[in-house]
């Protein structure tokens, strides 16, 4: 049986394999996370209360302010950090934050990626391939 594979338009970081945590919602490190405890803390967020540590977050769009540009680096330094981010749409802050933290991220799909990847599924993210992709294993 062949695995499902979805190609993105851009990527950075390294190859990652981890369970996916999926929601049709946005992502901002400042607005949405309790970064000390590693959980989504914004009450309205669809992943509220869930741990993001070591997960490949598959979400819709980058949201919020500029703080994520530093925060991914800070989260990575403490080891309380997602394994990767997979987004339908990014903003520059998410790219800047991933660049500083050497964090794995891919974005830009011709489908809604949050509808294609089952939450909890083991996935592989390869941002270095000629066409960056996420594969459901």
């Amino acid at each position, binding site marked *: 049986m062949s695995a499902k594979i979805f190609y993105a338009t851009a990527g950075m970081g390294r190859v990652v394999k981890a369970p996916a945590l999926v929601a049709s919602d946005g992502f901002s490190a400042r607005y949405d996370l309790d970064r000390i405890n590693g959980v989504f803390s914004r009450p309205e967020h669809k992943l509220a209360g869930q741990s993001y540590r070591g997960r490949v977050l598959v979400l819709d769009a980058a949201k919020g302010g*500029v703080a994520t540009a530093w925060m991914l680096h*800070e989260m990575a330094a403490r080891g309380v950090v997602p394994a990767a981010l997979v987004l339908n749409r990014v903003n520059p802050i998410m790219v800047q934050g991933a660049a500083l933290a050497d964090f794995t991220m891919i974005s830009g799909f011709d489908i809604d990626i949050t509808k294609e990847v089952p939450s909890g599924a083991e996935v592989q993210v390869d941002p270095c391939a000629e066409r960056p992709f996420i594969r459901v294993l």
Partner: protein
Amino acid sequence: MRLTDEEQATRAGTFGPLRQWAIEHQIKVGSYLGAEDFVPVGQAHIMADTESLGAAGVEWLEAWAALPVEQRQVRIPTITDPRGTDFAQASRLKQQPWMLDLERRAIAAFEALGVLMTDTCINYQTIMPPVRGEHMAYGDTGVVIYSNSVCGARSNFEGGPSALSAGLTGRTPRYGFHLDEERQATLLIETSFTPSELSDWGALGGVVGRLAGDYSQVPALVGLDRVPSSDEMKHFGAALASFGSVALFHMASITPEAMRLDDVVPTGQSLPTHEIGESDIRALQARYAKDIDTIDLVVFSAPQLSLVEMQMLAAMLDGRRADIPLLAVTSPQVKPDADRLGLTARIEAAGGTVLAGMCFYQSYAREMAEANGWQRLATNSAKLTNILGGYGYRPVLLSMERCVAAACAGGKLT
């Protein structure tokens, strides 16, 4: 990306390892976002509170700050967003010594890099407003959206590392809102409601932000019946950027690039159109107010208050007494004028606290809540309302007058 001789030399390390890191970072970001080359910028503005930086970020800055002076200094005017404390009031906020220590270390590192510690998110009102067409590398989404939309300047959201990079290299990757084609409207907002309260301007920004939904969207508003003031634009833009991650808006016949609506609507295109009325603004506010009849504190912040807002607040507090904490956060540039003109004294005589150089949500908001027993918070800032839920607060969006009334009624909402 195409690189000039100077950019290639920078990449090769000719101007030291910090500038080499900076341009590599910019190339990585620019390549991801489709930039073909760099554009020179006039100023950089760095958001770098220590809650965001953490110990790791501060150590990272300190390592660069130890370089020889000729290798570490920024080469264009580079200023800062609010810090994570007002040192003079830190004990009143019950901030911990470790927070202040991190702040002092970050400040020392930035000063060693030649950064001007302006500590403000209203630099367009107080430091040096950008000029139409001027390319910038601004941090703080409120600064970017105001500068792009009201001033006609050109900036993307530049997070701390990228704004610092721009300060060091004097340029930024040319993508997004540096390009003419990205500045055209992508959706039309027809509004039948022109707010009068700052909180309503923020709520309007929030409603439009939710409709827009992401960074690539540029809403154009029609139907406003007057030109908004600078403070009204400030609250509208800050909320629009916060709720929607939007960096540019147009207002027909008001903002400089949309003197005629046709100037920002792509030729021959019919844009998605939304109608907004007062009921949409009230619905956004009502959602936050649900089941809250008492508050623990009032905060005026995000963005920092202008001198005019400080005057409004002082007038509302004259002859009254706040019996729950009432915090008014302004910039280090406004604060001396507020002191000189007696506004600080009037606010503090009524039980308020004036803070300068910080912003509430950038100042360890979660830890302050735990230390002070704060949870239910009233503010006239839609941006602050949008942010604080994730920090464990239950925020309510009210007019400045209603916030003051609640503060003077033991926190009871009337």
